[in-house]
């Protein structure tokens, strides 16, 4: 994105693009920005597969998670939750609980007269000397509920006359895990509220022009995050105006701000520590869980008790009230002309995030097949008496991708066209087209399709199917949000400091790599300190924005430190700074003379050379922008091969080829793990997981990990991860996100492969044996 230079900016020519499609592009950056790494930058540390620096802590059991924090005098909290799907609180008295053994403090979390809108709603909390005592004392709390009519089924909740979940308008709860720009303030009718909508052209006209149309309804289930470490925090008051909070969070500063607001403190007086966390997947922003006021409960109990309080949810609570991916009912209508070109895409989606909003279906239908001129996507939130949804790895996208991709395959089937060819004809993004073509060869698309069709034709018991689907996501790297500090001491010790948290993505390692790269020192000499709000502002790890927000800031700070060291070296070598160069071993060189790194460091005046830096707003989006934005559009595709036993209806994901990009891949080892994890999450979503609520009693039947099935080692397909590096010119290191894209197309590609194997669509997730058998028996849609 180049423009006129002014006193604050400069234009830089970069080699951008991917594979053999590289070209010179001018971008405008701030004047003091280092030259962004592009296709010509030869890097030696960044881009190398690098084991995560905290690996041995995790493998030895020494890594401290919030659940592991043990403080002198620490109390354990437990929460009383409403057993009713909907009830009015008629009476609440926590006093009796205080007389129970070990109990030190108790607080109400609801008021008499409150409507408690789902089974699992907060009622009261208490803290005791042991966890057993805390849990046992809950039954001593005096409480009376008046049960009220409720509705837990999405379709039922849409009917006129259904019990009204919310009496008043609902405001949207958004976190850093949500995709930017998706907010909506839609009007509500009954339990239905208009959600985000995207539109271009005239879909009605497009449908009138169509020669072939396809229209069907696609449904997806409620999916729970099921992170292994449950939501948890430990609060210790240092004095009446200051607290320290250990929290299992994806957003240290969101915890700080929430605790400061609840307790009327200055944000700077709330210190938040997250050394490690056991997964989040979008559900862990803020001190509280989406459906439980953990921040208030722990902070208030600690205040009243005058002792630190640990509040760690148990598995049941985690599954009930800490968020989920909403279900969806998507009516998809497609039209195509006689030449096979899409003339219209229309999606009307309804979904329930329980008592919360957030049931949009992402941008797949709107953004991937953008050669279609007429597209309309309308989404609606349907309120039900169930635990609130929240951002979950690529909010909205997996369910949206499932519906549009399967619909495209059905349309292709109707027209007798190859679904991959149909996609290639409508995809605009050059990287995505390249990925599709790469996958076609690598996955042996044509040969495998033919083999699978031959099996189907001859009525083999075991059938095969092959499918493909795409992902779309944006580069949401944030400007000026993360401040990274780099220091080099007289002893040569290099420190990197930032208050980011490592969700398991490996950001610690990437920060170390970037600084090691700039200073020309081995990674082992760099100490990365993160996970503490005192280490400097940072972003939440959601929306695939951490690396692209923090790594460029780290580079910029390291470049400033290097410039100071270079100046010192020039003085010591008595040469003009213009003659000075920086060796790959960190030595400073001028002419024939050179100064090794350590020697140079010893000459540092004072204790250390220090610089803090941030990153500016995205300055490049090559070769393709996100619909409606200035930011880069991240492309990915996945190919799936499934195996189907026609006797049992069991469908197995046998192989997934995942072709993705994260701009410049900073650490291929950890990025690959992240993609594999995203794929496996998608496999699990496609074939196994479903939260089940009993309609008559409004109770979740599987709030656990034994009847809520998540994929295990034996469900693992062969996953082939391919990175196709793209130089986007977005920031100084070229990082863009990968966490979300990796899980978007998996379920969709499996559903398309299932259609190929069965010959008929299964239009509901998860694709369980009963649905497969129904499809095999000739029922469309199952």
């Amino acid at each position, binding site marked *: 994105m180049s423009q006129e230079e002014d006193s604050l900016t400069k234009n830089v020519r970069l080699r951008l693009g991917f594979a053999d499609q590289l070209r010179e592009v001018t971008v405008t950056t701030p004047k003091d920005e280092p030259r962004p790494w592009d296709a010509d930058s030869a890097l030696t540390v960044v881009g190398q597969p690098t*084991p*995560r620096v*905290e*690996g*041995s*802590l*995790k*493998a*030895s*059991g*020494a*890594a*401290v*998670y919030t*659940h*592991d924090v*043990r403080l002198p005098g620490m109390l354990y909290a437990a929460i009383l939750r409403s057993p009713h799907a909907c009830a009015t609180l008629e009476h609440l008295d926590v006093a009796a609980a205080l007389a129970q053994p070990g109990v030190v403090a108790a607080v109400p979390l609801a008021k008499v007269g409150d409507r408690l809108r789902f089974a699992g709603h907060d009622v009261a909390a208490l803290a005791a000397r*042991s*966890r*057993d005592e805390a849990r046992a004392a809950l039954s001593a709390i005096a409480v009376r509920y008046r049960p009220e009519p409720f509705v837990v089924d999405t379709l039922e909740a849409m009917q006129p006359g259904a019990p009204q979940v919310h009496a008043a308008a609902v405001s949207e709860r958004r976190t850093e895990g949500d995709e930017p720009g998706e907010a909506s303030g839609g009007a509500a009718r009954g339990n239905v509220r208009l959600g985000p909508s995207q539109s271009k052209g005239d879909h009605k006209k497009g449908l009138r022009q169509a020669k072939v149309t396809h229209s069907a309804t696609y449904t997806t289930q409620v999916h729970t*995050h*099921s*992170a*292994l*470490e*449950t939501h948890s925090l430990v609060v210790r008051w240092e004095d009446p105006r200051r607290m320290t909070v250990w929290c299992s969070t994806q957003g240290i500063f969101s915890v700080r701000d929430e605790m400061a607001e609840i307790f009327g403190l200055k944000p700077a007086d709330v210190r938040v520590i997250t050394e*490690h*966390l*056991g*997964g989040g*997947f979008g559900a862990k922003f803020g001190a509280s869980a989406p459906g439980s006021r953990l921040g208030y409960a722990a902070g208030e109990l600690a205040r009243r008790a005058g002792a630190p309080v640990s509040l760690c949810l*148990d*598995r049941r609570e985690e599954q009930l009230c800490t968020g989920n991916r909403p279900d969806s009912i998507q009516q998809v209508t497609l039209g195509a002309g006689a030449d096979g070109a899409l003339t219209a895409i229309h999606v009307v989606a309804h979904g329930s995030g329980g008592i919360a909003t957030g049931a949009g279906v992402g941008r797949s239908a709107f953004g991937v097949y953008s050669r279609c001129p007429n597209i309309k996507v309308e989404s609606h939130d349907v309120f039900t008496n169930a635990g609130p949804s929240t951002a979950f790895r690529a909010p909205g996208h997996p369910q949206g991708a499932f519906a549009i991709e399967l619909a495209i395959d059905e349309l292709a089937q109707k027209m007798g066209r190859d679904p991959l060819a149909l996609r290639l004809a409508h995809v605009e993004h050059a990287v995505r087209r390249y990925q599709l073509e790469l996958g076609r060869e690598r996955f042996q698309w044509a040969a495998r399709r033919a083999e699978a069709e031959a099996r189907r034709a001859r009525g083999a018991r075991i059938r095969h199917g092959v499918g493909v689907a795409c992902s779309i996501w944006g580069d949401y790297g944030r400007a000026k949000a993360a401040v990274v500090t780099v220091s080099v001491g007289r002893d040569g010790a290099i420190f990197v400091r930032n208050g980011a948290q490592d*969700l*398991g*993505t*490996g950001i610690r390692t990437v920060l170390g790599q970037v600084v090691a790269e700039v200073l020309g020192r081995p990674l082992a000499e760099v100490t990365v300190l993160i996970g503490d709000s005192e280490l400097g502002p940072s972003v939440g790890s959601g929306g695939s924005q951490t690396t692209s927000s923090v790594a460029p800031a780290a580079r910029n700070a390291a470049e400033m430190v290097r410039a100071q060291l270079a100046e010192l070296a020039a003085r010591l070598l008595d040469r003009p700074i213009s003659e000075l160069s920086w060796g790959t071993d960190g030595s400073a060189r001028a002419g024939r003379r050179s100064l090794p790194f350590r020697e140079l460091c010893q000459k540092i005046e004072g204790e250390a050379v220090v610089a803090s830096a941030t990153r500016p707003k995205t300055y490049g989006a090559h070769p393709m922008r996100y619909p409606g934005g200035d930011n880069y559009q991240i492309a990915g595709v996945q190919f799936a091969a499934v195996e189907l036993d026609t006797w049992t209806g069991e469908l197995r994901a046998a192989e997934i080829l995942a072709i993705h990009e994260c701009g410049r891949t900073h650490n291929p*080892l*950890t990025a*690959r*793990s*992240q993609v*594999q*994890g*995203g*794929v*496996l*999450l998608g496999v699990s979503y496609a074939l196994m997981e479903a939260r089940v609520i009993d309609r008559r009693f409004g109770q979740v039947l599987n709030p*656990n*990990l*034994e009847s809520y*099935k*998540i*994929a*295990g*080692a*034996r*469900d*693992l397909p062969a*996953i082939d991860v391919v990175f196709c590096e793209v130089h986007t010119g977005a920031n100084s290191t070229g990082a863009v996100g990968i966490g979300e894209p990796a899980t978007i197309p998996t379920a969709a590609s499996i559903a398309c492969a299932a259609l190929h194997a069965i010959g008929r669509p299964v239009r509901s997730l998860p694709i369980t044996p009963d649905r497969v058998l129904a499809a095999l028996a000739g029922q469309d849609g199952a």
Partner: protein
Amino acid sequence: MTGATKLTRRGLLRGFGAAPVIASCAGPSSGEAAAEAVSPADPLIDAVAIGPGLAPLDLRLNGAARTVEAAPQATLLALLRDQLAITGTKEVCDRGACGACNVLIDGEVRSACMTLAHDVAGREVTTVEGLATSGAPSPLQRAFVELDALQCGYCTSGMLISCSALLSRARGPLSRAQIQGAIAGNLCRCGCYEQVIAATLSAAGERSAL
């Protein structure tokens, strides 16, 4: 060794007529990582009442003799994490469904959440903290790091225990299927199974190369 009754949480559950819970997530478990509780003795024989308060027990924990006090209903997991503050072993489901709390009891993989503390009286308990030899990580631990068999790391200690047990049990070369069997009861939400398999194969290879 105390002569205490071999109480197990599962035994108690069974006594109450509750259905046993199952650890495997795909097909029958090999039994290697299953959440079987320890019940070697008939509770009617050799019975000595303990409780209701704290009662002492002796065990060997990561190679060292320990005498600790535990309530009769306390699980081994609660003993380790809450009482002894040895927190490498994780609690995730607290009911035998995930393998995060796996420990070795006399070399066998057990779920610490499904084992009563008093059931390990006189026995040898190894947690993830005990897998290193005088501070040096085991080849398996090293392979986990090198091959990135961990992301958030919350399942890691359980995985390491399951795979260590397999390595010390298995003769001859390991197969993928054997490892998948050994970790069939270990859930990983970050999706590290492939790397866990690779790390275990690599550690096995290193061993046979010796």
